[in-house]
């Protein structure tokens, strides 16, 4: 299996979202150490709140303030916290029904061990030192004493100075990407400045880059075929807008290139010729730069142009 390539792959994005009036009030409230719920038409107080009644689907915005204390409705002890979870030390995941609320909120409970946690235990919010208007403004819950606060939740306008109108929730996932047998062989050949495709056992076409399958016949391919290095421009476009962080002068030409012996054109940049002189049928060859994983670009070979009939199937 040593010929199978693998490489770390990180997918990371800041999830940027706008908030509606109810979520805005709730998250701004957390910033101000105030927990808001929303009362449904049936009279249930939902915490965390939503903008539409789960039963009637009507818009709801009747905000009330509930207590920062509550009761655990169920829990699960997490002995080995994962990255980005609320606490770095072992903790309990809990659903907590805050006093005055009819539904439960998911969060973490900081407790010494699983033997100190039970359903029905009393807990209170521990606020984060720095609060921005996010669910993480609740650092976690912590055990507390005292009976449930039985008073009716107080109406709240939901109005705060400088309300939070959006959240940015960073997300990062780590992978080890393996491209499989066919693409590993292709990438390994490129290291030696060679381009290999695979021939379909049924239709005999040579695909490059190979993906281990013929997309027409739907059958596995395995027979390796070296193609190129020279090829023919089958079609092209002129790029006039510079992409961010791209160190190539515009305008430049991006082309489909049918390498000799291949039945599928691949992409490449054309250089070494003025952009307005690139044409269909132009014969080109790859130009490699030091330590590059792909040809940097393709340049004219100086041969006469290919006859249209020799590449028309590949346009």
């Amino acid at each position, binding site marked *: 299996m040593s010929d199978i390539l693998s490489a770390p792959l990180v997918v990371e994005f800041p999830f940027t979202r706008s908030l509606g009036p109810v979520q805005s009030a709730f998250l701004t409230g957390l910033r101000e150490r105030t927990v808001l719920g929303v009362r449904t038409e049936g009279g249930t107080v939902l915490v965390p709140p939503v903008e539409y009644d789960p039963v009637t689907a009507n818009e709801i915005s009747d905000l009330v303030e509930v207590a920062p204390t509550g009761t655990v409705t169920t829990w699960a002890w997490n002995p080995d916290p994962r990255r980005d979870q609320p606490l770095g030390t072992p903790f309990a995941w809990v659903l907590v029904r805050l006093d005055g609320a009819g539904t*439960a909120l998911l969060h973490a409970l900081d407790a010494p061990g699983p033997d100190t946690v039970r359903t029905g235990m009393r807990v209170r919010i521990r606020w984060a030192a720095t609060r921005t208007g996010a669910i993480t403004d609740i650092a976690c819950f912590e055990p507390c004493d005292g009976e449930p606060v039985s008073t009716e939740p107080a109406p709240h306008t939901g109005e705060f100075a400088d309300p939070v109108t959006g959240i940015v929730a960073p997300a990062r996932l780590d992978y080890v990407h393996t491209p499989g047998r066919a693409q590993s062989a292709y990438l390994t050949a490129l290291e030696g400045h060679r381009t290999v495709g695979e021939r379909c056992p049924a239709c005999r076409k040579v695909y490059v880059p190979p993906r281990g399958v013929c997309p027409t016949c739907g059958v596995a391919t395995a027979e390796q075929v070296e193609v190129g290095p020279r090829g023919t421009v089958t079609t092209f476009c002129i790029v006039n807008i510079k992409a961010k962080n791209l160190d190539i002068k515009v305008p430049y030409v991006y082309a489909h290139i049918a390498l000799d012996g291949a039945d599928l054109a691949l992409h490449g940049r054309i250089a070494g010729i003025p952009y307005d002189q690139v044409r269909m049928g132009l014969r080109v060859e790859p130009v490699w730069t030091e330590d590059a994983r792909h040809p940097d670009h393709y340049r004219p070979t100086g041969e006469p142009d290919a006859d249209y009939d020799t590449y028309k199937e590949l346009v």
Partner: protein
Amino acid sequence: MRDVAIVAFAQTAHRRRTDELSEVELLMPVLHEVLGATGLRANEIGFTCSGSADYFAGRAFSFTMALDGVGAHPPISESHVEMDGAWALYEAWVKIQTGEADTALVYSYGKSSPGRVRDVLTRQLDPYYLAPLWPDSVALAALQAQALIDAGATDEPALAEVAARNRTAAVGNPHAQLTGDVPAGDYLVRPLRTGDCPPIGDGAAAVVLAAGDTARALCARPAWIRGIDHRIEAHGLGVRDLTDSPSARLAAQRAGAFERPVDTAELHAPFTSQEVVLRKALGLGDDVRVNPSGGALAANPVMAAGLIRLGEAAARIHRGESDRALAHATSGPCLQQNLVAVLEGESTHA
């Protein structure tokens, strides 16, 4: 309604990792197997539908690469759901009901090995209140398990028995990943131990659907889909009664599961505690053979495991080992979404 049946089913041997295979390379053998079983060629299939999710590969539109495996040139009629393949099967069933197709190829694949599936699944959660806390899939299932224990519906020894029964059944399943005498293990997230949780792995599955006489021509004993329905409930866990699954019950009712008893049930319950919830919601008694394949506790290629339940139930009917089977698939945290189908073999006495 048209009579539609599952006429062929294939699945890979599910394994912890398949580094040497791209998604399409993983998938192709099962596509060839179901086409071979029916004698259909790719260009004779009326509709193709697949299920998978980009988050497992970490690459956008990863399913388009897998399309090479079905021979999508010249053009075919195709669709994809970013869900378990069971929902792709539902879409294909609807397509056949419209009369636009008589046959359908449904496939799905799940390659969990490139990433960390517990973390990946947090990205399906509500992005305002849940996802920023990164509650992983085992943690959420553990909350449900504790709720069941508190309600007196189960206890840890009973959960261990669920695990043991499924994995013992899986000994007879050559495709299963985790079989036989698997230790209960340490707590992963208490009260769930490693033994209560599904294996993490890679795999793929495919079925062929066909209508009416076409089905009879393609299969000696088609598994007729007598009813199929899927239902969803609230995303917020604190809004739901985690000890029950009203959506599974309603889907089963709408699929006709309660009209007559079933002899077999393939339940998509990746965690032992979820089987407890589903048995109750679906009213399955001890006389029903539950998960003779070993279920998701024996192999859980995420996004294919639900389709495999439909395929396993159908295959038992094909082999004459079941006359009326219930197949269930789930998605989302703590059984949020549930699909139920009722499959029947044609009685020789009818």
